């Protein structure tokens, strides 16, 4: 039974992602990321199916989720390949990532409190700037729901890469380094892909920024979880 659940969940996940990648290519909409499309399609399907089906899918996808760990470790590779960028612009990288992370978390908790958002949702919104494999690890640590965290991370990636370049141009941020750092810090891998479209230097800055953002926000979440339990 367990083997069947694993096989079924793996086949369903791979098939759904493949189908959504195909649809995205047909529609040629860059904003419609195949994963976002697959989450919407899968989510809608399981919302109408009996709950036991979703339970079986979640149980069956356990081994696949374990791969997220080695994949998170593999993020060291793009960072290592861009180490020359960090050596050349250490202060710009660290201060931009620190400023971006601190300000975005401050706005989440400030605005969230004003709007009466529950703490669980504010925690998920605080993790939106962290690349997803690390964000899911932090969600577990801070008792935050992984599904809501995934949606927040994706919104940040997709919306940030769509409006970020125009926003940065509007405030006259023209340096490729600064633009890549801003896109990578807040919009992680999707933002980095957008930065790479602008220039290779922006792309390198994005890779370094997404790693720094994960480490900085990760450290912050760990300290807060130690203080508040």
């Amino acid at each position: 039974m367990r083997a069947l659940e694993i096989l079924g969940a793996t086949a369903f996940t791979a098939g759904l992602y493949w189908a959504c990648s195909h649809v995205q290519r047909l529609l040629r909409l860059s904003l419609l990321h195949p994963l976002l499309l697959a989450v919407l399609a899968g989510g809608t399907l399981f919302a109408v199916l009996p709950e036991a089906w979703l339970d079986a899918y979640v149980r069956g996808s356990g081994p696949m989720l374990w791969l997220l760990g080695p994949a998170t470790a593999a993020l060291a590779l793009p960072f290592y390949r861009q180490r020359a960028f960090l050596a050349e612009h250490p202060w710009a990288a660290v201060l931009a990532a620190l400023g971006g992370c601190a300000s975005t978390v401050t706005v989440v908790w400030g605005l969230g409190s004003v709007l009466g958002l529950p703490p669980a949702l504010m925690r998920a919104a605080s993790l939106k700037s962290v690349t997803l494999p690390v964000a899911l690890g932090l969600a577990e640590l801070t008792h935050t729901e992984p599904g809501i965290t995934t949606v927040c991370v994706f919104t940040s990636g997709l919306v940030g890469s769509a409006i970020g370049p125009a926003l940065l141009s509007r405030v006259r941020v023209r340096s490729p380094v600064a633009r890549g750092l801003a896109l990578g810090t807040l919009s992680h891998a999707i933002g980095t892909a957008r930065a790479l479209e602008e220039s290779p230097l922006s792309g390198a800055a994005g890779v370094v920024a997404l790693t720094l953002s994960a480490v900085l926000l990760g450290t912050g979440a760990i300290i807060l979880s130690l203080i508040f339990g």
Partner: protein
Amino acid sequence: MALLRICLQLVVLGVLYAGCQWLVARTGLPVPPGLLALLVLIGLLLSRAVPERAVDRGGDLLLKYLPVIFLPPGIGVVRELHTVRGHGLALAGVVLGSLVVGQLVAGLVGQAVVNREKP
């Protein structure tokens, strides 16, 4: 030969992560094992204790198919829809507002430091 190399490298990454999982469980370190494995591998690569070619193919393969692994937790959001109910608009406002502010701050700080670095 290339397939064997990829498989071996996947095992290396898996063992690294399993080792970090074991360490976290054993010591009670409040760090996600994945983040710990990322930091350990960055340290090993930078110190040249592990050459890039020991993990490059397997690592790149995992990163290429990473979005597929994200799908199950994304679909799992269906279970938690009740937590968002009544707060959807506020959550969207908070995520978008904080995203715009964060991006502006990161960009402006980065630009200011780059301008100061210029000779």
